[in-house]
């Protein structure tokens, strides 16, 4: 199966939001990270994690489903020799930073198992994840909670959070990437 165009994808994301509302829940993924902390015993260290994580188990099922969906899509719903077809200008910019021509879904040089032995790469992955987890909870939500659910509910706070997402993303891409890579 070929990748889906933006208009199919955007409509289906709105459908997911509707399904979650219809199920009596709100669409927000990063809350799971807090739940995982509590399950690992973080409630002993900070009151922020003192809640009954079982009330959030529905969202953990959603998380496991997301992983399962990724597995199914990558293994059974994709054409052979699949590569994400990004624009020529992006390919040019990335090659100037030392990335090889796109291959697959994400660069294997950074996310593939063969790249797990490189210290610099591990630091990049760990720092990226650290900022995603810290920032999502500080901002009270991630892309699903703010950019989709929050803006759909016309929340100024969510709009500001998305402005922040872009300030950070642009800073990383245009200022820090040339220093890192």
């Amino acid at each position, binding site marked *: 199966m070929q990748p*889906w165009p*933006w208009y199919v994808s*955007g*409509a289906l994301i*709105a459908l*997911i*939001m*509707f399904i979650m*509302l219809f*199920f009596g829940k*709100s669409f927000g*993924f*990063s809350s799971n990270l807090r739940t995982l*902390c509590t399950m690992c015993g973080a409630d002993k260290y900070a009151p*922020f994690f003192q809640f009954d994580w079982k009330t959030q188990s*529905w969202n953990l*099922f*959603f*998380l496991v*489903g997301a*992983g*399962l*969906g*990724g*597995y*199914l*899509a990558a293994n059974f719903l*994709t054409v052979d020799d699949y590569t994400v077809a990004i624009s020529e200008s*992006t390919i040019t910019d990335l090659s100037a930073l030392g990335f090889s021509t796109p291959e697959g*879904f*994400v660069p294997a040089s950074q*996310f593939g*198992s063969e790249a*797990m032995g490189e210290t610099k790469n*591990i630091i990049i*992955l760990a*720092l990226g*994840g650290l*900022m*995603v987890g*810290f*920032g999502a*909870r*500080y901002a009270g939500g*991630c892309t699903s909670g703010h950019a*989709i659910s929050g*803006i*759909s*509910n016309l929340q*100024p706070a*969510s709009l*500001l959070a*998305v402005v*922040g997402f872009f300030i*950070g*993303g*642009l800073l*990383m891409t*245009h200022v*820090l990437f040339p220093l890192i890579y």
Partner: protein
Amino acid sequence: MKNIKFLIAGTLFGIIMFKSEAASWYRIQEMFRFQAFHMYGIIGLAVALGVPMVAIIKAKKIKDFAGGQIVFTPKAWSIPRYLIGGTIFGLGWALSGACPGPIVVNIGAGYAGYFIVLIAAVFGTFLYGLLKDKLPH
């Protein structure tokens, strides 16, 4: 098992994130370089449909499947919380090429590196919980 429906919704979400390529590091780079409409189209259309959806649910007082009121919790306004927190999130989004949902989608798709990203994201949330009272909100 009442949670199975969330597993199915999550699976659908995972497939959408992969097939839309919204979980692709390449697409996130393209987005932050403004070199294609793709990601803007996806998020823009989701919001363009989401705004009237929420408005109709509120106006018609549409109930959820169990007959309960669908509630929307307003988010308390604050500048530092959303601006600083959002900026830190954005730095991580661009560096790892994935927001929280797509991190898990990529693990499912078989990219081992995202397992490190996930563990670090859980740890980042833990750090926030420890420092919460010292941060401007």
